[in-house]
């Protein structure tokens, strides 16, 4: 490690604010970029499962009649 302490790494001779801000502003959209399609996928997945349950219920009642 180049820095002597975590505090020094945080401060970075006065440039810490810019560097950490840049990394934070990169990390947030990157997380969203991965999380959003996963969330969409999960929603579609649930929709299909619900649809399957509905169809199963429909065929069950038909068979009952």
């Amino acid at each position, binding site marked *: *490690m*180049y*820095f002597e302490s975590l505090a020094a*790494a945080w401060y*970075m*001779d*006065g*440039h*810490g604010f*810019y*560097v950490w*801000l*840049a*990394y934070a*502003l*990169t990390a947030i*959209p*990157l997380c*969203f*970029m*991965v999380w959003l*399609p*996963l969330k*969409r*996928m999960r929603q*579609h*997945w649930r*929709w*299909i*499962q619900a*649809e*399957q349950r509905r169809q199963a219920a429909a065929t069950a009642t038909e068979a009952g009649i």
Partner: protein
Amino acid sequence: MWTIIHKMGSPPWFFRISGVLVRWLLPITVMLLVCGALWGLLVAPPDFRQGNSYRIIYIHVPSAVVALAGYYVMAFAGAVSLIWRIKMADVTMRAAAPVGAVLTAIALVTGAIWGKPTWGTWWVWDARITSMLILLFLYLGVVALFEAYENKTAAARACAVLSLVGTVNIPIIYKSVDWWYSLHQPASIKFTGESAIDASMLYPLLLMIVAFYCLFAVAVLLNMRAELTWQHREAGWLRQIVSGA
């Protein structure tokens, strides 16, 4: 070759392969990103002229590089969709556009933040930043055009035409902005030559570039899987996967 193209056009096959791929690629990408970021932030020595602010390079350059490459990936998918009319190419194009736009935006924002300690101002009309800004417009154009069409098959076609025109134009735009800048370059701003970069700084940069490529691939694949799930929500093969899981 043809069998591969044919297979890639088949959603069930793609869905299975991409599932395996993502399962492996996602952890690897996260690992690469964390390692690269820690290396660049904490281990690499500071630049002798810019001090520690140069550490932004480890996200700025990779995002810019991958954003530009992403446009070519998108345009290639567009060309495949126009020529061979493979629906999967449409899905790829649609999935790549927002990812590329986000990466371009990241490159712009980090560039601006880097500019403050280096040049004393948040925004400089530097050749590369200006080119990135135009690339962002090109990406946003594709995304907006896709959203504006009601018929999504037609939307994919229109976007393919647009991204191909854009691809031909990108080198011209970059070159013209370069000339424009060298004509107007203010004397007060100086750049560190990239050729002079030391190996101890270069390795984490290369690592981060690889990591960003992986991230692009993962994000595109995830988008494609989400889109395919919706498009084939009525299909038997997908229902089997869902009920089997």
